[in-house]
């Protein structure tokens, strides 16, 4: 089964790379940052192109064939997006991306259910699109509870149960984390929320197309989806809004014409939407084999690195995790310097030095990972177009760079001398 998929991918995309190159058959630079974004699958691009050229009509133009062509593309895409999450067409609203979907879901519920309550529950490891939206609502008088996570990155269901009160109108917890890939117990959270009559939104951006999402089985009321995380184009996404058992209503955040059943005004990005639909269809079909292949590659990367280096720590649960994610800390080596050493590989780091604000990753902090290990972390996001040869190359580059940087590191030197770094009085403290 996996051979079939590999062949498909090879034919469509990896043709260039199939030619023998130096560096053990890999084309540089290698992209392994698929949680940041993904390349557009050639099949998706092909699906989109006509809507830029001859089928350019506005999907809302009801009176001519140009408009009808646009509308048809949108409705086909709508069905495809619905299918990949187990929803019906009418429950899909197209947006400009998951950030907008998160905003729409949270603000939309907050405004619509204001009479019922003003309490929202979320988690500290959420994406900024959720956290910043919650912070804004706090300014408008809403109360927000930010649940902590356990060492493995998972929310404690008892914490959630205790946090729900008579004024709670929304629980928003992501299905899969973008930094550590950890999967939250969505079905249990959904079940609990339905029992308590609280609306449940999940930011499913990193999960859709990678692990099964079923809005019925997992009792999800709202779900944010992003095209560019699943081999689709940037600038388009969707929000699933439940219509039955219970019917969920949201106030729009954008006014102007009442498109998308009044939930999201604005001319639809027809080519983008066509792309999103195709991306969903491909994932829906290929997910079982693809996630199996991803897990194989990820484990290969992990094992090769960990069998050649000591003092390497995985951040977050390995058991409840996206198959393509690996987030590791390399003790005594700083993240940005590591990235610099593997400059022909695209990955990212939780180090403060790599962020614009010089703050280390708040997700790693929430796990209880010490700041020093947060600074030493690297996130690998494998994807559809990564190969075994690339994994081996990357692992070897990481190993040699870590070894080289440890020779440069005063912390490694001290640790080897038997000094307990936690007991040292550092000058900067």
């Amino acid at each position: 089964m996996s051979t079939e998929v590999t062949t498909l991918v090879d034919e469509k995309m990896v043709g260039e790379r199939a030619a023998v190159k130096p560096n053990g058959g890999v084309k540089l630079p290698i992209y392994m940052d698929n949680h940041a974004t993904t390349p557009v699958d050639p099949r998706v691009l092909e699906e989109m192109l006509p809507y830029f050229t001859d089928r350019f009509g506005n999907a809302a133009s009801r009176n001519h064939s140009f408009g009808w062509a646009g509308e048809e593309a949108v409705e086909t895409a709508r069905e495809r997006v619905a299918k990949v999450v187990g929803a019906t067409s009418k429950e899909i609203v197209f947006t400009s991306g998951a950030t907008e979907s998160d905003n729409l879901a949270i603000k939309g519920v907050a405004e619509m259910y204001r009479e019922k309550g003003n309490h929202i529950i979320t988690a500290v490891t959420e994406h900024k699109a959720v956290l910043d939206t919650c912070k804004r609502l706090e300014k408008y008088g809403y109360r927000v509870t930010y649940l902590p996570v356990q060492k493995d990155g998972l929310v404690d269901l008892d914490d959630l149960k205790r946090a729900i009160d008579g004024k709670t109108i929304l629980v928003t917890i992501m299905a899969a984390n973008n930094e550590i890939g950890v999967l939250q117990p969505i079905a249990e959270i959904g079940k609990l929320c339905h029992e308590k009559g609280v609306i449940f939104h999940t930011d499913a951006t990193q999960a859709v197309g990678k692990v099964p999402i079923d809005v019925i089985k997992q009792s999800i009321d709202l779900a944010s989806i992003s095209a560019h995380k699943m081999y689709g184009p940037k600038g388009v996404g969707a929000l699933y809004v439940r219509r039955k058992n219970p019917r969920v209503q949201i106030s729009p955040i954008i006014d102007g014409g009442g498109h998308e059943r009044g939930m999201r005004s604005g001319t639809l990005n027809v080519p983008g939407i066509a792309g999103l639909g195709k991306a969903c269809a491909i994932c829906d079909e290929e997910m079982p084999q693809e996630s199996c292949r991803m897990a194989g590659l990820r484990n290969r990367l992990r094992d090769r690195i960990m069998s050649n280096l000591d003092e390497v720590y995985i951040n977050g649960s390995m058991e409840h995790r996206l198959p393509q994610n690996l987030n590791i800390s390399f003790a005594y080596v700083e993240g940005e310097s590591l990235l610099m050493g593997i400059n022909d590989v695209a990955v990212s780091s939780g180090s403060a030095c790599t962020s614009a604000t010089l703050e280390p990753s708040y997700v790693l902090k929430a796990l209880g990972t010490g700041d020093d290990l947060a600074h030493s972390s690297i996130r690998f996001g494998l994807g559809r177009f990564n190969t075994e040869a690339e994994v081996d190359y990357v692992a070897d580059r990481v190993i040699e760079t870590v070894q080289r940087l440890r020779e440069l590191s005063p912390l490694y030197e001290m640790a080897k001398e038997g000094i307990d770094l936690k007991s040292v009085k550092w000058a900067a403290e």
Partner: protein
Amino acid sequence: MSYSNKVIDHYNNPRNVGSMDKNSAEVGTGLVGAPECGDVMKLQIKVNPTTSIIEDAKFKTFGCGSAIASSSLATEWVKGKTIDEALAIKNTEIVKELSLPPVKIHCSVLAEDAIRAAIGDWKKKQTSTSAVVVAEAKV
């Protein structure tokens, strides 16, 4: 953010990586920064006891490329200088030499601190040595 060629050069070919015997009377050791901040620099100098000129310098750094380059450059600059000349080295000069962007200026500050800390440590050793000499003379 892309790095200047000089930063890349120091990163790929760091000068004077290593350690000296920190118990030696001729060696001054400066250890600055903290692991929680993502920056720790150890800079050591070996000072000629007669001329008080810095004969040798070594460094080890836990930090980003700019931090590694700043401390590597610092060891290059202090070699051959007198203590006072080394104390006169300013972080702004490091920033200029390496073309550090504003967000990396703190790396150069830490390197300047490391030089001072190494010199401070060496000076402390000289004072206690001379105190011993005086005490012995009295006896």
